[in-house]
């Protein structure tokens, strides 16, 4: 057991990383408060916490991206200043970011040598890197074609390039920030094999995640963060998921949402053989067939990037497609690119988009203008044929914000100044209150705090209970399992299969998400 080995070392070996009393504030927000941890060499240490708990800030400090306001960093027992990434690299720290830091039109080799070239000329550096990469690939199962352009690689391979970059820089401490967010379960398993291999070679690994399963599966020790503070550090074998979940959110969490059985009615949404090709000529939807009935929630599970976003864009009226979509029996026009959002809304389709900052809100507009966003043509907002009724818009916004408990309840405040959860409440209030026949919901609780999650889930179920159809897209399997009345899994632009939530489990869905079709019965 690896755990036994590290315990034996503890007495004699200095920790690979030790943080003492790290604090960091961004303006009035205290992102990290007096944080201390110590990680033994040759172990995998997990850091778990909700979105916004301060995990990423802490790791950015360790990687020289931000400067801590207070505190010390010790690497292998020696106090080390890390003013920039260069210093972090010198100290042997490598980082694999959640959003890869790769130059897309460069080859793997060029990306690997960037910043650590051996001389002014490229040729010798490339030759040297080609050799080392081969050695690293053999040693750690890190196979990637060194001459391939990044833009032609899949996410799994891109992540391996990031790890290779760190190893080529001779990192012996590797930080991975939410590494499995974009991976299928199979790719995640491959990653964990790599990480295990690295640990066996004596590398120290810090794994940042919000997924309890990963912590339990691979880490030796785990630290829990909540609201900028480190609430606990425990040995993984001495804890369990329930305890960690509680430490994470600060109270007992309901893993299932209370709801009565669905009473499906007529088909509200009926999709037949839907195809969609994006701006780069890539086919994103490859013949989708789906329907959603009144009074039910259809959940679409899948790793992000498998066509869910494109499906929502087509339904929301801002991407063109071919095939057939009927709403309440009437076909809708799929040819108009970019500009059909208004007619979709008039047909009773409301849409809580996946990315509220990019799509759902105008961040610099005050809340009251955002509450009208997309519905600004509707009668209630007009004063006369030419002008809008700004006063009424503010009143309506105030009313919605009060009823949806948006804090602070100030219609004049710009959207960017609300927290993620409150931003999402503004979007949900706007869309649900329209009393739509069909609600499209993408990632309803991404970056939203626990309290708001419950509230938003209740709103969605409430709409269903009023006999409306809901199409839910989420990459969080738990969310899909607890909200949906039926579950469809998307992979590579296809619907891989449909299941009832009480007749399936994460394993079966995980296989479908990886593109593996059912066990012989299909």
């Amino acid at each position: 057991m690896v755990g036994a080995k590290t315990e034996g070392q503890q007495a004699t070996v200095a920790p690979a990383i030790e943080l003492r009393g790290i604090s960091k504030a961004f303006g009035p927000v205290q992102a990290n408060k007096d944080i201390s941890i110590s990680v033994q060499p040759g172990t995998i240490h997990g850091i778990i916490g909700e979105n916004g708990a301060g995990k990423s800030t802490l790791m950015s400090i360790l990687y020289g991206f931000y400067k801590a306001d207070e505190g010390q960093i010790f690497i292998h027992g020696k106090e080390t200043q890390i003013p920039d990434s260069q210093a972090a690299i010198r100290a042997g720290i490598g980082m694999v970011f959640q959003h890869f830091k790769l130059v897309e039109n460069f080859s793997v080799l060029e990306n690997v040598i960037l910043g650590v070239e051996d001389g002014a000329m490229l040729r010798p550096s490339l030759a040297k890197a080609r050799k080392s990469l081969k050695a690293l690939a053999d040693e750690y199962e890190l196979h990637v074609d060194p001459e391939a352009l990044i833009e032609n690689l899949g996410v799994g391979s891109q992540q391996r390039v990031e790890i290779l970059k760190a190893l080529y820089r001779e990192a012996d401490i590797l930080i991975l920030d939410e590494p499995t967010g974009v991976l299928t379960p199979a790719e995640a398993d491959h990653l964990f094999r790599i990480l295990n291999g690295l640990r066996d070679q004596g590398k120290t690994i810090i794994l940042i995640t919000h997924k309890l399963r990963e912590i339990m599966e691979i880490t030796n020790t785990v630290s829990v963060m909540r609201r900028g503070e480190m609430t606990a550090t425990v040995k993984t074998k001495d804890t369990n998921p329930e305890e960690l979940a509680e430490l994470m959110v600060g109270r007992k969490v309901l893993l299932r949402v209370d709801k009565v059985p669905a009473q499906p009615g007529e088909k509200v949404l009926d999709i037949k053989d839907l195809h969609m090709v994006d701006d780069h000529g890539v086919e994103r939807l490859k013949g989708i067939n789906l329907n959603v009935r009144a009074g039910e929630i259809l959940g679409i599970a899948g790793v992000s990037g498998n066509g869910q976003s494109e499906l929502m864009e087509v339904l929301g009226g801002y991407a063109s497609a071919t095939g057939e979509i009927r709403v309440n029996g009437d076909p809708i026009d799929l040819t108009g690119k970019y500009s059909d959002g208004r007619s979709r809304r008039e047909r009773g389709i409301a849409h809580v988009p996946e990315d509220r900052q990019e799509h759902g809100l105008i961040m610099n507009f005050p809340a009251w203008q955002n509450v009208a966003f997309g519905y600004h043509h509707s009668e209630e907002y007009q004063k006369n044929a030419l002008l809008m009724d700004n006063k009424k818009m503010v009143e309506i916004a105030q009313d919605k914000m009060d009823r949806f408990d948006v804090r602070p309840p100030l219609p004049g405040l710009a959207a960017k100044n609300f927290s993620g959860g409150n931003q999402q409440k503004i979007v949900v209030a706007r869309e649900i209150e329209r009393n739509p026949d069909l609600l499209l919901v993408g990632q309803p609780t991404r970056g939203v705090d626990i309290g708001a999650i419950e509230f938003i889930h209740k709103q969605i179920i409430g709409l269903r209970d009023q006999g409306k159809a809901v199409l839910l897209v989420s990459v969080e399997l738990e969310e899909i399992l607890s909200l949906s009345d039926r579950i469809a899994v998307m992979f590579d632009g296809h619907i891989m299969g449909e299941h009832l939530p009480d007749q399936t489990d994460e394993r079966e869905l995980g296989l479908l998400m990886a593109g593996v079709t059912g066990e012989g019965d299909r």
Partner: protein
Amino acid sequence: MDKMPKWADIALIPFLNLLIAFVLSGLVIFAIGENPFKALMTMIDGAFGSTYGWGYTLYYTTNFIFTGLAVSIAFKAAMFNIGGEGQAMIGGLGVGIACLFIPAVLMPHWTIALVFAMIAGAIFGAGWALIPAYLQAKRGSHVVITTIMFNFIATALMGYLLIGPLKLKSAQESASASFPDVTNLPTLHEVLAPLGISFSKSAPANVSLFIALAMCVVVYLLMNRSRLGYEIRAFGESPTASVYAGISPTKIIIIAMMLSGAISGLMAINATMGQHERLILNAVEGAGFIGIAVALMGRNHPFGVLLAALLFGFLYQGGSELSLWSKIPRELIVVIQGLVILFTGALDNMVRMPVERMFIAAAKRKDA
């Protein structure tokens, strides 16, 4: 939570930006061997010292209100329209054609001629903005470069027309025939005389000033109270979110640019119809470019544009006087214009960051 009070954002920072630009302009004057304070006094005297000076100052102000509003509408849609100069030139062509070729029976009074001229100027200006707008919307051709090219093309076109087809044969210079008398707009002298206010007869300020002021109100209502304005602003802030909301980028780009071009074109009722009363080669005199500085300084708000236009009206008239009474050429105004754009537009953060820090520090001290 905002980092600083609103007044600091809309008044203090622009003031500081401007101050830096003017101090540097003063240094430029000093560097070429003149006394900046004396130069300033000459400018103030020349611009405000007489109703003659006021007449020119307000004439230029009128030009800059139009071009400033034009640039600001495009800015709101995140378009940088540098083509105001060309659009105003071609707008002038429209105004000129209306004045020269609409039969006298249809234009019994200057008010009617003005309506015709405004329609023609707006259509021509908008038309000149249409191609860059279309290319931006449909082909992704950067509107900054295409509008600059259209300025050059407009100059060539006007040169061709005023040396060729539209040239008054008997005249030496490149200019059209004079417009019919009925199209001549009342000057401020004529407007104010019945009220018992005496105003210089020879100054060019005319009723277009009131059209410009009305245009400020119209643009304010359009941008802040109408659905179109809402869509333009939404698109300018976030094209991706606008698409989600069913706002067509193509439509907004083209409409915003054409509105911008139309308002630039309207400038010609002041310059071409009100002042020159015939088509000449350089009626616009760089006003299209000054619109950029005016819009930036006015924070793209019609009221701010009005104030900034007045300031530049003063600078322009003062600068002309200065070039008469000193060795400082009129190009000084171009230098000031460049510095104002630089400091209010591109180097805004240079002032904003320290001021923000100051307010945060002050707020912390208060908390403590």
